[in-house]
């Protein structure tokens, strides 16, 4: 079975507010409404990669080209972060 592609949900936008990146819910998102979620560098990178449809493996590949991974934790971190974003419907599988 082909690996699914994901894309960012239009219910959220990423904004650079002051010195940090913040995810802002702008759609009907239940509990997350009226909140602003601070994104660290990893989450910001992942969000930006999923702005166009991509698989998690493709995102990992881009990350390997851009960042060093001396401890070999990059793939695990990206997979875990992506799972969380899917769980919270912040990124969605492309039909």
């Amino acid at each position, binding site marked *: 079975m082909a690996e699914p592609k994901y894309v960012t949900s*239009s*219910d*959220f*936008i990423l*904004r650079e*507010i*002051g*010195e940090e990146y*913040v995810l*802002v819910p*702008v*759609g009907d998102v239940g509990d997350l*409404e*009226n909140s*602003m979620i601070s994104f660290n560098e990893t989450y910001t990178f992942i969000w930006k990669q999923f702005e166009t449809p991509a698989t998690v493996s493709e995102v990992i590949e881009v990350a390997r080209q851009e960042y060093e991974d001396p401890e070999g934790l990059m793939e695990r971190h990206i997979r875990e972060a992506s799972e969380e974003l899917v769980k919270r419907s912040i990124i969605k599988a492309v039909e």
Partner: protein
Amino acid sequence: MNNIFSKNEIRLLELITGSFSDNKTEKKAAGYDIKEVFSIALHHGILPVIYKKIKEEDLSGEEREILEASVKTTASDFFNLSMTARRITSLFKKEGINAVILKGASIARFYPVPESRRSKDIDILLADPENVKKAESVLIEAGFKRTEKEYNANHHEVWGTPDNHVLELHTILVEPFDDKGFNDYINKRYILREEDILHEKVLGIELPMLFDDRLAFHLLLHMMMDFYRHGFGLKLLCDWVAFWNRDVKEDQIKNFLSDVEKCGQKGFLSVVTSTCIRYLGLKRENGCTLNIDNDKIIYAGGTFCALADEKICEDFLYDIIDTERNGKPDDERMVAMKNTGFMALVKEFHHQTKLYYPKASKAIITLPVLYVIVFVRFLINNKRVRGGAKLSSIVKEADRRSRLLRRINETEG
């Protein structure tokens, strides 16, 4: 730049200019005190607008904390208020009530960073004032609470939202002026049909708003109304810069200019726009609607207005900077009157009395008492603002502002 402005004010104007343009070679005022620049920007509520520029300055740790907090709070307010505005207008729409938001996101969308424009409340204008009772029922049903204030009774109602924001529900566009013809024209022009409402997404939030012609006219009237009543701060001039620093369609400009002419506000338009061009970075290059041709401000379709002379622009801008110099609450400032002298003062008090007490002032017998109340309130407010100033200096200040207003009105548009 003339020496009417301090070095600190000149630097602030440069920071604003730099924030609205891509101009990398902004000039730098010498010998300014960045603490003072920071303080003026803070009081005018424009720190987030100049964030990228002012953070490059030699700020203290405490100032940097205030700056970051200000940016976050402003952005958070922007999103919360916009989401609430969308919720309210959707509820109205379901009941067949058309409405538009005023100010807020409808102006912020023209800023380089929309969420940097400070908003403290939600302003909604009903497309048809006849729907006010129906709109009230919708708000009550949704958990909103009316804040009773007779002062606003003939212009807008103030409501508290369930999440503790303030909603101003407008039934007419601006507070009535003491000019019936003017008021009648505005009220007729702003009964909106379905096709007069623009639905646009601002940072992912779709909201109903005015098209450019009416939006620009409302901005101008809003500035004028605030200028008459108590003055306004740099934020509204930033709105004007943001609005025109883009490509506005010719037919929209023509409609706008027609409204301005019918309401006799070409002089005010000229002074506001010229001030923005001279001091606030309203561009004179490609990408901006407006340009200068000798003594005129022009756009692709013809003349926009006359270019006002530097002296009146300076005095006007000085008044604007002064309005919130020390964080003065802007509803506690001196009124400006159309004319000077005792009769002008009496006329203004009569008008203010009608605005503050629309119901009570209908009974002639109560008028003397209401005049006294308005006068005492005027004195108390201005004494507080002016640090216990004498009555003579309060009246002198009102006179100064009235003379400035008269010069503006006499400016050839």
